[in-house]
Structure formats: structure tokens, C-alpha cells
């Protein structure tokens, strides 16, 4: 099994899709000659040339709008927004244009468009370069949204996203870029919308994504020593959402903790609460707990940043809380 980093998985997925389909093009700020500010896309410009791999000006609205225009006229573009926080600079193009273009036209267009961006706290980038932005995008029917947490998922989901005839956001977590993992040779494009039960358990279900999956797994190992058996679900995709995997797990464990790297209000965790309240409330033996950033913001100073993002201790505490009831 070949080992690669999450970062390398992004680049390999892009390269493999560009080799497979000449309609795939890739552009963004400093992605071509420099290979990306996170050094995620080196070599693509050299292999595929300046026609298909382009550096853009610092123009997020034009990047997203041009990607949309190209997508509805015969290409399959991948656009990079660098830091995910920059989605707010081009929210009109994302929300009013990309997400609605097919619908408003009565289905005249498909929008085979992938937008990549790096999100997440923990690297000392400060308040405007550290947010997780999923929840802002989940209010937009028309968009799909994937949040890979391992190199294999990153590779497969990015390839799957590029092959989608719908606009897909692929959010990459900055702190995972250096993570190494197996990406089997036969890994192909993955279907979007399938959660992964990363660890099986019987007492409490944790639902999480990206960095929080890894911290939840650490918490689960710790809790095992205390006799608490934790099941950890990596959602991998937030839109569409794999409801069955969540409900099946809650039916088994009867207890649910949701771990999000995001503010509490209108976070995607609220959707999971709603789902279980609606379709699984009689299975519950304890209140649902959400572990998240509360209403705090990501700060620059290391102890402040370390505190705002859910850590293993806070996750374990929430699990103990529901397990005791």
C-alpha cells in the first residue's frame, strides 16, 4: 500500500483527473508556478501547461465566476480559494450564482465545478485565516460539500468531486496536510455522501469531521481504558449527509456527542441534532451533547487558539457526561 500525505493526495487526485479528462482545468492564486501557498499543487503547471493550470490575480469573485462560466460552457474546472476564509469575499458568486445557476435556468445547465479551499485553526494564522466554513455553505441547496480527514478519503473524494456534474466544495484541513496514510493503488473516485464508521463501539456515538475525527479517536482510546466503548463516525460529506449511518449508530449506542470545529450557532451539528430528534429520539438514553467553539472566535495567541478548538479532554468529558446517564 503506497503511503502519501494528505497534501500529496490532493495533488495526485488533481493530476490523475487531469490526465483522464482534458476538460479538467485548474486555477487559483499562486497555484501554478509557485505550486500553491501550502505547496499542495507542485508539478501540475509543468505537466499540464499554462493553458490548463493558471495563476490568477487576487480576485476571488472572478475566480469563482470564471469557474462557473467555464463549467457551463464545456469545461470541468477546479478553482482554488487558498484560505477557506476567502469564501466570504465571493459569497455572491457562490450562493447566488454557482449554487442556483442550474435551478434558475430550469435545468438547462449542469455545473461540473469543484472549489477547493484550506480551512481550520491550529496553525497560528489568526482570526481571518483559521475558520471552518462548512456551516455557511450548508444553507445553499445546489452545493455539495465534502470534508476529507485522511489521505485516502482526500484522494478519492476529490476525484469524485471533479467527476460530479454539480458544484462541490472540497474543504481541506490545514493541520492534516502533513498527515501520512495509505492510499491503495486501486483507490478510484469515491462516491460523495457516504460516512465512515472509523471505530466501532457500543456505548456512545461521536459524529465529527476532519481534525475532530482524529481527536475523537484519541478520546475514544482514552475512554476505552475507563470502560466506555465509543463509536466514531467520520461524516466525510456534509451535503449530501449520510443520515442512515448516523441513525444506525445512535440506534445501537443510544447516546450521541457531536464534535465540530466551528461556533455553536447554526453549526452543522445542529442539523444532526435535528435529524436524531426527528427520526431517532426514542433511541436516546441521554441528552445529545455538542462539543464546539461556543460563541468564541479563533484568536492568535497559542493558549487561546488551543482552547477554542475542541481538544481530546473536552471531547472525552462530553462522552463521560452522556455515558453516565
Amino acid at each position, binding site marked *: 500500500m503506497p503511503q502519501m500525505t494528505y497534501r500529496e493526495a490532493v495533488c495526485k487526485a488533481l493530476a490523475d483527473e487531469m490526465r483522464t479528462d482534458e476538460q479538467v482545468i485548474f486555477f487559483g492564486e499562486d497555484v501554478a508556478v509557485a505550486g500553491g501557498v501550502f505547496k499542495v499543487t507542485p508539478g501540475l503547471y509543468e505537466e499540464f501547461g499554462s*493553458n490548463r493550470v493558471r495563476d490568477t490575480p487576487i480576485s476571488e469573485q472572478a475566480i469563482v*465566476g470564471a469557474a462557473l462560466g467555464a463549467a457551463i*460552457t464545456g469545461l470541468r474546472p477546479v478553482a482554488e480559494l487558498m484560505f477557506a476564509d476567502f469564501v466570504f469575499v465571493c459569497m455572491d458568486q457562490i450562493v447566488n450564482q454557482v449554487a442556483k445557476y442550474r435551478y434558475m*435556468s430550469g435545468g438547462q445547465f449542469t455545473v461540473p465545478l469543484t472549489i477547493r479551499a484550506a480551512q481550520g485553526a491550529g496553525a497560528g494564522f489568526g482570526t481571518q485565516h483559521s475558520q471552518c466554513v462548512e456551516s455557511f455553505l450548508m444553507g445553499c441547496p445546489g452545493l455539495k460539500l465534502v470534508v476529507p480527514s485522511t489521505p485516502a478519503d482526500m484522494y478519492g473524494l476529490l476525484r469524485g468531486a471533479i467527476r460530479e*456534474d454539480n458544484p462541490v466544495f472540497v474543504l481541506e484541513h490545514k493541520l492534516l496536510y502533513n498527515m501520512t496514510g495509505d492510499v491503495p493503488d486501486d483507490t478510484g473516485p469515491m462516491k460523495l455522501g457516504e460516512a465512515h464508521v472509523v471505530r466501532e463501539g457500543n456505548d456512545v456515538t461521536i459524529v465529527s469531521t476532519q481534525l475532530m475525527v482524529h481527536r475523537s479517536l484519541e478520546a475514544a482510546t482514552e475512554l476505552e481504558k475507563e470502560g466506555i466503548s465509543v463509536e466514531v463516525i467520520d461524516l466525510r460529506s456534509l451535503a449530501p449527509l449520510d443520515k442512515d449511518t448516523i441513525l444506525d449508530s445512535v440506534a445501537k449506542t443510544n447516546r450521541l456527542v457531536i464534535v465540530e470545529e466551528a461556533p455553536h450557532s447554526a453549526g452543522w451539528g445542529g442539523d444532526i441534532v435535528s435529524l436524531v430528534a426527528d427520526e431517532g429520539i426514542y433511541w436516546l438514553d441521554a441528552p445529545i451533547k455538542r462539543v464546539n467553539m461556543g460563541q468564541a472566535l479563533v484568536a492568535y495567541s497559542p493558549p487561546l487558539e488551543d482552547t477554542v478548538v475542541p481538544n481530546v479532554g473536552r471531547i472525552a468529558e462530553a462522552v463521560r457526561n452522556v455515558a453516565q446517564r
Partner: protein
Amino acid sequence: MTTVPALNLDSRQWMLRRMLEIRIAEEQIQGLFMQNLIRGTTHLCIGQEACSVGIAHALQPGDTVTCTYRGHGHALALGMTMQKLIAEMMGKASGACKGKGGSMHLTDASIGLLGENAIVGAGLPIAVGAALSAQVKGESRIAVAIFGEGATNIGTFHEALNMAAIWKLPVLFICENNLYGEYSPMENTTPVAHIAERATAYNIPGVVEDGQDAEAVYDAVKEAADRARYGEGPTLLELKTYRYRGHSRTDTAPYRRPGELDEWLKRDPIDVLARKMIADGQLDETELEELKQGTERLVFDAIEWAKAEPFPPIESLFEDIYA
């Protein structure tokens, strides 16, 4: 504004007929709105018809257009049928967008109309993308973004022109300068007298043309389109024009300068072309009257047809969100 070469008779007849269709359709649209058969809002381009037909006539099959909510004229000029247009505005299933778009989102991929847009300036980057795909694929088609002078004060204008200029994309930026951004006269919002001056910031040609003369519009668009097709990059073309009606349905435009409308009415785009054709012996008053009556029948028939068409089924609410 130089001397405009006359187009051939077929072209003139086509442009005159299409301008009449636009004018008469929009007059009826206003009436349908008052009867509540069209909902929400409408933005009429009455007075600006020469822009629509001059642009459309200069384009080729495969070329694409994004325009604004003041785009009924562009849709008709590009070839959207009167039935599809009226039915869409009435929210009927047989409308251009199956009733999901309405007056501000007319779209017809079959004629290259990538869509009107209800967000000021939003269509410009989309046109840049359409031009990008032409360039990447080595196709000779061009993209056109049509917008008002108000859109040149929003960020997408800058981003789109800048990106198109550095990549020398085959795209035309056509500004229909009707002197008012919503209710505000241009001099209150814009520090240049001519929008075309802004082209210098992108090192691309900026051209001012008379937007009331369909032949002049055609000529200017054709020249810019040729440049784009030959790989010489984008042009910013400003068409000086005027809307006779207010910004949208309820606006009676009390902010106009006294006498301004009367001055512009003297250069009505339909009259400008009809007078030239009459002077050249290509049309007489009787023929013009017959043409108007025939166009009225076309519009009335489309309205009656659309009234009888069904609304979309409720299930369609959930269709076409995803492919």
C-alpha cells in the same frame, strides 16, 4: 461617433422587426404586470432596443451572452421565442426556465443566452469564464457581458476586466449607459464622464458608441468581436442610451432632468432606423404601420397562448437543484 455604414436590407429589416417586437412586448409586459399576471418586478428596456438588436446581429452561433435583469430585449434579439419569454414571466411550465426564473433570470442555452442576472455585475465574471473555456478549447466563439453603467462601480467589474485583460480572453464588455443607476444619475455615483475611459486601467480598448442607432451598435460590436475572435483580447464598449421608463415597475422616474426624456425621444431607436430606411426607399409609412400591427398580433397571440398554459407541477420545486 463616426459615419455609420448602412447595413443591407435584410439586416435592417431584421433589426427593425426585432426592435418592434421588443418595444411592443415590453409595453404589454407592463400591462400584464398591472393585471398581476406577472409578479415581483420588471425592468423595461424601452428606449434601449437598438443596443439589443445591434449586439445580437453582430454575434455568431456559439457565442454566449450574460446580461442583466433589464434583459428582455436581449433575450428576444438573440432569438428567444415570444411564447417562451411571456410564459416564463407568467411563471408557466412552458417558460424559458420552466417558470423557475422569471423576468430577471431569462436563460436560453440554445441561443447562447447564459442568463440574465439579478445581481448587479455578477454576469461579468461568468462571461469571463465562458471566454476562458473558448480559449482553453481553442474555439473561435466569443463571450459577451452586457451590463449597465451602475455595474461599473461594483467590484466584479474590476476583477472581470482585469482577469480578461491579462489572459487576453475573447470577451466583450458592453456597457449600456442609460445615465441612471437605479434612481441615481450617473454624475452622482461615477467620477468619469464616459465609462469607456475605465478601459485604460486594463490596457484594453475603450470605445464610446451611439446606442440609439442599431447600425452603429452593430458596427462597434462587430469590430470588437473580430478583435476578440482573432485573439486580440477584450474590449470595453460603452453604448450611450436612455430608458424611457423608470428603473423598475413602480418607479415613475421623478428624478429625471426637465426636458431630458423629450430630448431622447427625438432619437428613438426605432424611429432612427425607420427614418433611414424610408429615406433610402426601403420602407414607407404604410409598411411600417403594417409591420407594427403584425408584431402586435404576434405579441397578443403569445400572451393569450401563455395565459392558457399550465403552471409547473409542484413536484418540480425539487427538480433541477442537482443534476
